[in-house]
């Protein structure tokens, strides 16, 4: 391969990884935007989405299965909030974060018993395992385009929702100043439920589109959550578009590092870059400096 094509191929493989991190990071961001909580069970929502879709796909056409999975997992997200958060006496951020860690373990175990330990996957949305789209001599799986599409739709949808609808603006209000939002007549608890449902739904969508590439199994959530989290931090928490840029950046960085270093140093270079960015800009590449405004994007 000539050097130009080669560089492009590395870039495209970075985009493949990055799109996966980005689509996971978006879900992270929404709950954070609405509640200030980092949801460590976000990876499990992604896993659940994939699992439910694979199960449904045995009975119904693929698009219906994906829609069904998003709905089902969104309901699970709402239920989790109702069960574990609403009755809580102290809604301190730390309490909530610790609960999400517990939830991630519970969901994993539940998935292990509901399904089993086996690896499964959805079929490729277009083409099959060996088809690829040619771009100037380099190649990329068509499924990556689906992932990027899902990223685009999610970001655009979220932007419209958070900026231009009353519900979305109320959600942002809860995050930036809960007391004031309450005084303005916003039901904070309901907003939190909605945020969990939406995040879970977004996670499920991610789980469906990445399933053909990464495959789905009950333990996949943890690893994805870490990378998604890194992407969200790098971009700047609280801003969906920043999360996407962060995700793609982490992916491309990893691929570029493979070009020059042994692949074993993959994560090292990605996280070194993350640390560097956080040193220079503690609020991420696109986040606003002050604490409260980070969430108010």
């Amino acid at each position, binding site marked *: 391969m000539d050097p130009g094509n080669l560089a492009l191929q590395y870039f495209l493989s970075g985009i493949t990884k990055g799109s996966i991190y980005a689509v996971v990071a978006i879900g992270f961001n929404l709950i954070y935007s609405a509640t200030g909580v980092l949801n460590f069970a976000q990876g499990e929502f992604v896993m659940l989405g994939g699992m439910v879709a694979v199960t449904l796909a045995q009975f119904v056409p693929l698009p219906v299965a994906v829609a069904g999975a998003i709905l089902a997992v969104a309901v699970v997200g709402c239920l989790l909030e109702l069960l574990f958060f609403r009755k809580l006496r102290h809604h301190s951020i730390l309490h909530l974060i610790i609960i999400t860690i517990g939830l991630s373990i519970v969901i994993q175990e539940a998935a292990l018993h509901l399904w089993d330990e086996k*690896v499964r996957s959805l079929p490729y949305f277009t083409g099959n395992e060996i088809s690829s789209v040619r771009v100037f001599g380099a190649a990329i799986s068509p499924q990556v385009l689906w992932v990027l599409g899902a990223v685009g739709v999610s970001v655009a949808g979220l932007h419209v929702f958070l900026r231009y609808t009353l519900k979305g603006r109320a959600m942002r209000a809860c995050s930036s100043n809960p007391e004031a939002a309450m005084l303005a007549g916003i039901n904070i608890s309901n907003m939190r439920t909605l945020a969990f449902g939406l995040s879970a739904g977004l996670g499920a969508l991610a789980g469906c589109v990445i399933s053909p590439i990464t495959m789905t199994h009950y333990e996949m959530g943890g690893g994805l959550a870490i990378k998604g989290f890194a992407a969200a931090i790098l971009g700047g928490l609280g801003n969906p578009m920043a999360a996407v840029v962060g995700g793609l950046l982490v992916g491309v960085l990893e691929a570029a590092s493979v070009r020059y270093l042994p692949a074993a140093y993959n994560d090292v270079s990605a996280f070194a870059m993350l640390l560097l960015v956080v040193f220079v800009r503690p609020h991420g590449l696109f986040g606003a400096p002050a604490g409260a405004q980070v969430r108010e994007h």
Partner: protein
Amino acid sequence: MNPLTAILTLGLGLSLLAPASSLAAANSGPIKIGAIFSVTGPASFLGAPAAKTAKMLVDKINNEGGVNGRKLQLILKDSAGSPEKAVSFAKQLIEEEQVLAIIGPSTSGETMQIKALCEENQMILISCAAAEVIVNPLAKHVFKVAPKDSHAAVLIYRTMKDHGIRKVAVLSSNDGFGAAGKKQLEDLAKAEGMEILVNEVYDKQATDLTDILTKVKSQPGVQAVVNWSIVPAQSIVAKNMRQIGLNVPLYQSHGFANRKYAEQAGVAAEGTLFPASRIVVGDELADDHPQKRVVTSYKQEYEKLFNEDVSTFGGHAYDALLVIVEALKKAGGPDREKVRQAIEGIQGLVGTAGVFNFSATDHTGLSLDAFEMITVKNGKFTVYRK
């Protein structure tokens, strides 16, 4: 009955019962066999079929009257692939349950953690993991029934040489299985006349490997790729290679010997070559092949009972139990030292992985011909013929 009498009666009853029950355990009760498998967790693809197989075989033996007229009792523990859990379960099986022998664990890492423990307590351990270090250096009480890593690597290299392949790329995952395989491939390369041009390790949770494969593609002269890992990376490698148009043969380790992985990779798995024991191609064995009977009966029973394809990993549990039962018959009873000696005397025992010939110095029992080169054709495993 007043309380005092009740307590006295109870105490008396218990004291009478106690010696009776311990006597029973030694002479006529069921013979306890411990099993530690990673039924859940990252190595569940090894442990889950093993646990199912062990239960199935023990039930079958008991239905047929047991061994020497005594039933077997399987005490199964799920280590979830964690060496710490394996250690505490091994202690429990040794001290509390006082089992005759332990089969498992599924992974080499877990086995190495309990190797010394079993040796100290003179507990027979029949490991279902592959690494060479389990039986080398030799421990008196530790055996293994899975074929060796080094045999798999040798067979891969020899098949390559038949095709005139001399220069390879080696990919492996950053876990025990991948590291052990990588070491064997590196150590054996020189002796087998192979040259490793690219040697990369990736994260076991990797979601996509196109970047590493791009590196392989950019390296001139690579004639084949060897991947040594466990699912899902095995399927991802196959897919990514075809997607970026890296059109050299793909060799995988014996870890690929579960048809699920080929299914996950779909058409991308076609033509993949890997060494495995004959259990995965039982249908193709000639009727007079020594393993034919064992392999087909295990395959039929397992697939009927659990409605899933048989894999080599379940077979290891089958073989481990087979070894214990054979030794028990020879020893005449559950005397641990006699059973241990009987295992070392086993010759020509036909199992799912091959024909076992143990000795005081060889605790593996299998030779290179336990492996067959297998390929994927139309989504099915079939014996590879040049």
